[in-house]
């Protein structure tokens, strides 16, 4: 169907609420549905929100510059 015709179609108040309701219900179901079961991979790197602490080792000895061994 031509997209213009779709936009021009009169949208009833009742239909509007039904659509919104169905959409919200759909979103709710999507949130609780274990979507990852549908996909091959079970990896979730993006969800890996573990806090990483970066600490230097105080016993290591650094140099200031590349190629310079601080005398």
């Amino acid at each position, binding site marked *: 169907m031509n997209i213009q015709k779709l936009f021009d179609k009169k949208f009833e108040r009742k239909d509007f609420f039904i659509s919104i309701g169905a959409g919200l219900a759909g979103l709710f179901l999507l949130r609780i549905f274990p979507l990852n079961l549908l996909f091959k*991979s079970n990896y979730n790197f993006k969800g890996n929100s573990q806090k*990483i602490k*970066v600490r*230097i080792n105080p016993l290591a000895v650094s140099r200031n510059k590349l190629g310079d061994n*601080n005398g």
Partner: protein
Amino acid sequence: MAENFDKQNNNGQSKESDPNYWQSFKELYKDISFTEAKKLEFQKGVEDEFDVAKLPGVSRRKFLALVSASAALAAAGCADYNGNGKIIPYNTKPEEITLGKPNYYASTFIENGQDYGILIKTREGRPIKVDGNPDHPVSKGKTSAKAQSAILSLYDPERLQQPLRKTSSGNFMKSTWQHIDQEISSALAKADGKEISIISHKIISPTTLKVIQDFQQKYPGAKLYSYELFNEEIRNSAWEKCYGSGLFPSIKWDKAKIILALESDFLGTDGNRVETSRMFADNRNTNDLDNFNRLYSIEGNLSLTGMNADYRMRLRPDLQFEFVMSLLNEISKQGVGGISVDPDILSQFNLYDFAQKNSLYGNVLELLVKDLLKNRGSAIIHAGRTLPENVHVAVNLLNDALGNSKLYNPDTTELPDFSLTKKEEWESLVQSMNEGKIGAIINFDSNPIYHLPPDLGFVDAVKKVPLVISLTESENESSELANYVLPISHPFESWGDAQTRVGYYSLQQPVISPLFYTRQKEEVLLAWVSGDYKENIYHDYLMNNWQSAIYPSLNEMLDFNRFWLGALQRGIVNTGSAPNSINSFDKTALAVLKEKPKNISGYVVSLKEGYATGDGKYANNGWLQELPHPVTKVTWDNYASVSVATAKQMNVEEKDVIEISLGERKLKIPVVIQPGSADNTITIELGYGRSKCGVVGLGVGFNANVLMSKDSKLTPWIYNSASIKKTGDTYDIVSTMEHHPINDPLVSGVVKERKIILEGTVFDYKKNPKIIKEQRLTDNASLYDPHDYPGVKWGMSIDLNKCTGCGECVISCNAENNVPVVGKDQVKVSREMQWIRIDRYYSGSAEDPHVSLEPMLCQQCDHAPCENVCPVAATNHSDDGLNQMVYNRCVGTRYCSNNCPYKVRRFNFFNFKDHFRDGYQESNLFDLVYNPEVTVRSRGVMEKCTFCIQRIMVAREDAIREHKPLKGSDVKTACQEACGTSAINFGDINDNKSEFYKYRNNELGYYVLENLNVRPNVTYLAKLRNTHSEEA
């Protein structure tokens, strides 16, 4: 006899003056699909048609509604975006750290039994880049691609983060070190006098060996087994037979005028390639043509070394013994003494009969013999580590007879691989495991189930051992069968020392505290020995060992603590000790040279170390997996490499899957037809086909380790009498070889006609130093007025005589410039993102091609065609001659890429950080790998080489602070720093007193596609092949 050879038809070397360059068979044979592809800037499907007339009309109101809805959705969707963390300043700033300034730590990287001195750059405490340690006597400021890529492994989100214990149901459960220590200590104590087998890679650390000795004292049943998938054991064993000492000397490659490499990839994988590449390139200096080396290579498959050879011939590896014996006989016939092989045997080998039988070029062999005789004492013959012992003994004899022992360097003798466990001991271990005599197995950072030959029966036997402990950084095939999987720290989080040569020790220090709940492997054993784990337990142990065992022998003036701090800072300690000189040749070694010539036929399988993945340890490293193979340019796979004739004989085409059978051992693997491969030789690289590893390397390629046998007749890497069956299946192999071709319908030989490659010979260049200049198309008109660059103007020169095509610059650039990994599916559609690529061109025939290499990166043209077409001025020119890229301004039209004649611009078709492997690069941990000085680009943005603008800015800042003018030599680009052969030079084009200026204005210098007159700022120094004058 040699005179009978038809030199016209058998010289194998096409004339340099008229080469036909080609990159693939499709190009060579003018395949219609390749010709069509050349007409397209981007591959089919990448560009969708965009016809405005066909778009539906949308009213103003609807348009605004859609925009509002999109904005609302975008706002909602981005509210919780990954990486919206807060930047908080230090409450108490560590003394060493200055915000925005890097720190460098000297350390050691151990790879395949070799140690490389490295400097690790850290920013605010996190390691971000690895370079070579200039103080290290072997590395001398250079390092390997694997060492550079280790940064990525440090931040691998799939590293094991805490100890795991297998439950009775067979699942792994998280545990604590305290519980694990208690359980394992008590289990080891109950071993009832049974053996505790520690399986390790080759240990080159004296202190780690001491830890194991302490462990053996506490648990007297403990025994150490060690292996390396690829090792120098055969070379060392032959050396011991010949010279009575297992101390194999290093070779003075930089003094060798003639090098004969027999199945030896000394520039690629054999030995310490960082050292050999550097020394080899030292003698490819166009300013010192009298000492310019000449490399002959005789090998089964085109290797990195073979690509760089002046003369190359193909020979199946199981015929190398016959070849060396024939060469010995010929040299002996020329009156060289000291070849005390039984004359009855030696006389059966004839060099020119052998050549005729095996399609070698008689005239080239004649030249080789002449060269070896003429350069006695300054030539070296090097046999590959995969060849049998008798070849090595024959080669040692040949070098000895020709007086080439002068090129052995006893001052830097390599320590031998004798500590590796012998086959009989492995068999006995497996038998003991089956008989229940083994109480425990400790996989000490090793993966024996993947590495050991399957017919050893190790997999079944290990299931009968009651206690199996795997100490590993991430899960692997062996940890799957373990009762306990103990996470060990990354080398950059660990202390250590190493000794691979007489005369010095390397030190390893942690540049970051462990990111996870891990311990380094030595700490794990020490905790079981002492029964009590303390923080820094191994650091204290290492210091004590050095203080008591090593420091007293050094005659140091400083007290130990000051010495120790200095040693850590340098990363290296010279002991000053050197072994005695090399003994005289022991003729009893020649007893192994009794084999007579054989009729060898059928297929031979040759197994090689993977250039990228090594023995498989680096399989989960995306930078290495995506690095194009130096020869075939294949990424993300291994394959069976065969010659054109062999493919025809097997009735297979590229990408067909074949089944290789060696008795009961079988492997299905796709075929790649490799120009320059010996007939009936199937070459496969190992290190692929991992069944248990992280998501990056899982299932990538094929596990050819299954073809290895404990009872190999020749060597563990060469098997003849293989049978081949075509399976009828095909497999998609992805190569970057045909990416970015130039469409020039008016010119057939585009590479030659458009002067993409210029090259010559040493002989011709000596005769006429203007030989390259005369070929250049310099008389070009310009639409533009000349622009003045009064200050510093940046430029680069690449010496193609030194470039070996190894790809270390590519990895270095990836790390420096936050270049993402895109995956095989994206490489397939030419969307790889690497800013530098090594173009590899063949010329000559498909059977015996010449190879020309040309690293290609943004040429920073003065008249940059990309700048003219950018509608938003996102790419423009700086006043120091750089073609800049403003990411925030780029709207992604890709016009610039279309207009770039060098095809060096890369477009982010996706947010690759998110797109690759389920957002692998989106992990929090991955954020730590990024260089904070370089923007991480997102979808829809064009990018390209910037000449490391961030490094230029740092140098400029330093110059301003120190009130001195900025000099070209103040800046080193990442690729330049990583280049093992110093082929890349960078500097100020306007500084006529600089070293760089000489390179830039060298007589051999040329620009690629010079007739376009875009005035590139990258100069290439034309390759000179050191062939003989009669060939030229």
